[in-house]
């Protein structure tokens, strides 16, 4: 507005000046006319020498015409100025209108921005306080309700070779673990599986079926497990037996083909763990009672109890014993996490019971496990004692009576290659190098005898098919190379050297016992692709 005033004043002053300039010019002309008139009166022009009055009139007329022309020019200039001023005014008005529109638009934007900011703040507050990150899982769980169902499991497909067994066969294993959670203190867990190999395909039978119960709530270190469960003796059956967890294709001898402890039992467990020191310094307990161990003669697979007969491997169909069993396992983890020394477990187990009438089966064992960085190791040693019935007459089969002791052990070492500095391997090789793990295991079993009808040479998942394993004094060195595609997907490769020692006896039902001399060594090789899901 102030600018407009300046323009108006400037225009007025300019027009006035322009108006005055011609007037002054006219006056000057008039004076010159007067001067020329005066001059002509004193010194008449040569042309008007005949009629001075007429000449003067002509001069005035010419001057008047000139003045008229100047006035017209002035008016034209004034008109142009007026038009220009009007155009300027119009432009100023347009600009003012535009500015007002912009101001209005700005106001609207500011209002919208404020509203959006308020909305964003509200959403952010909701996210922070309600949906996440900490509350999101619980919200989903709340939506799904208390009853939930989950399926986990594993699958393995492999190819096994055994020189002495003359086997070269594919094998397949598949197991699903349904979990049905009823509420925060009760969950069902099961295991159904199938195994396929040259011997055929086993049916889908439940190998585990139990309830996990938290009788005192989630915050008390007491859980009950009732039903058919893995035997919590040592660590292998419970924690290491799934193919994708066990870094080897085969289990150690004492938990595999020559198992000295039953793999599962029907009963009730109480268990729990507490922290006794710093973070990671824990101690835990597991105690249980069950239906007791069973051997082949217990369930009628063979007619007479014999030293060297095999423990029943599948208690799902062999649980009808007249015995009772009870056991306990205690573990301590002495190293605190804060010290960054790795995790060390020390364990002791015992399992005892009546395997046949009043005849005892007793066992105990110790074990360890340790992992730090790329290195891990674990091992166990266990001993069993079986009281044999006193049989007479035809039942007094050689080796029937007295008692039977067995010992089993293993130790394994593994190292993942990511622990080795390897700065120059290149982009392709380096990740593959990092996923590779080298393994070695030594395991053995000592027992007095082997029942010849127990000797197998048909491979199945976890068993190479090597008959050399079935020796009273079996020894095995296993070398492994694992390639971990994912934490739960692994390509396992293993070479087993079966190195049985002389000693012990072979029993064949209906034939005389034969002492075992030097037993043939064997080599078996296995490759297996395993997935845990």
């Amino acid at each position, binding site marked *: 507005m102030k600018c407009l005033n300046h323009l108006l004043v400037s225009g007025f002053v300019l027009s006035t000046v322009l108006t005055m300039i011609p007037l002054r010019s006219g006056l000057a002309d008039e004076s010159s006319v007067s001067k020329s008139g005066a001059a002509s009166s004193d010194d008449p022009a040569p042309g008007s020498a005949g009629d001075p009055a007429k000449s003067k009139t002509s001069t005035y007329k010419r001057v008047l015409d000139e003045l008229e022309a100047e006035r017209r020019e002035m008016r034209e200039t004034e008109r142009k100025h007026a038009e220009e001023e009007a155009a300027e005014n119009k432009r100023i008005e347009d600009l003012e209108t535009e500015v007002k529109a912009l101001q209005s638009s700005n106001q609207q934007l500011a209002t919208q921005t404020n509203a959006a900011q308020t909305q964003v703040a509200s959403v952010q507050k*909701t996210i922070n*306080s*309600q*949906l*996440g*990150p*900490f*509350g*999101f*899982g*619980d*919200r*989903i*769980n*709340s*939506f*799904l309700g208390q009853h*939930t169902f*989950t399926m*986990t499991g594993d699958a393995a497909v492999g190819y096994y070779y055994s020189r002495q067994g003359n086997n070269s066969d594919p094998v397949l294993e598949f197991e699903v673990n349904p*979990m049905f*959670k009823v509420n925060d203190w009760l*969950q069902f*867990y099961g295991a159904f599986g199938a195994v396929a190999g040259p011997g055929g395909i086993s049916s889908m039978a439940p190998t585990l079926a139990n309830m*996990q119960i938290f009788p005192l709530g*989630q*915050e*008390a*270190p007491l*859980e009950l*497990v009732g039903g058919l469960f893995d035997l919590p003796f040592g*660590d292998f059956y*419970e*924690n*290491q037996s*799934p193919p*994708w*967890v066990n870094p080897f294709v085969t289990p150690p001898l004492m938990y595999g083909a020559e198992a000295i402890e039953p793999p599962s039992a029907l009963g009730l467990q109480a*268990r*729990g*763990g*507490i*922290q006794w020191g710093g*973070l*990671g310094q*824990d101690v*835990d*307990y*597991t105690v249980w009672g069950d239906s007791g161990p069973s051997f082949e003669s217990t369930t009628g697979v063979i007619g007479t109890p014999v030293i060297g007969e095999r423990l029943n491997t599948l208690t799902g169909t062999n649980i009808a014993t007249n015995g009772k069993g009870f056991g306990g396992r205690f*573990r301590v983890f002495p190293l605190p*996490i804060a010290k960054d020394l790795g*995790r060390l*477990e020390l364990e002791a187990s015992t399992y005892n019971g009546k395997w046949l009438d009043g005849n005892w089966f007793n066992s105990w064992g110790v074990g360890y*496990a340790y*992992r730090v960085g790329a290195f891990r190791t674990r091992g166990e040693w266990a001993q069993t004692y079986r009281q044999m019935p006193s049989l007479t007459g035809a039942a007094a089969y050689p080796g029937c009576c007295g008692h039977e002791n067995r010992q089993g052990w293993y130790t394994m070492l593994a190292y993942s290659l990511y622990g080795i500095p390897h700065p120059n391997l290149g982009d392709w090789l380096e990740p593959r190098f990092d996923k590779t793990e080298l393994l070695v295991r030594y395991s053995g079993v000592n027992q007095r005898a082997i029942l010849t009808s127990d000797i197998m040479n048909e491979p199945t998942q976890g068993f190479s098919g090597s008959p050399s394993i079935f020796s009273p004094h079996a020894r095995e060195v296993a070398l492994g190379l694992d390639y*971990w595609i994912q*934490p*739960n997907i692994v390509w396992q490769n293993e070479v087993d050297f079966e190195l049985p020692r002389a000693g012990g006896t072979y029993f064949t039902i209906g034939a005389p016992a034969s002492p075992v001399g030097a037993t043939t060594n064997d080599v078996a090789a296995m490759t297996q692709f395993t997935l*845990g899901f």
Partner: protein
Amino acid sequence: MKSRIAKAGVILVLLLAGAVGARAASGAPTAEQQKRHLELFHKGQALWPIYCNHCHNARNPAEFAPYQWDQIMMHMRTLENLPPEDEAAILEYLKTAR
């Protein structure tokens, strides 16, 4: 068929959103609860690789849904005799980190 699936999907999403919203409207966690969550999360973050790797490779939290981790950890706590507070911390980490 596709439209039915689409409708079912929309209904499911609306139901989920409704349930989450209803739950969200029921009350925000207090600052103390948030602090407790954060403490559990950090503790679980420290324990997860060590405790899980003791027997097997630690599994990726994104592999399972929160309700599945609830079930799996209920099973793993029993199997491995985890102290209750440690199990709660690992569970918090697995459900949140995913």
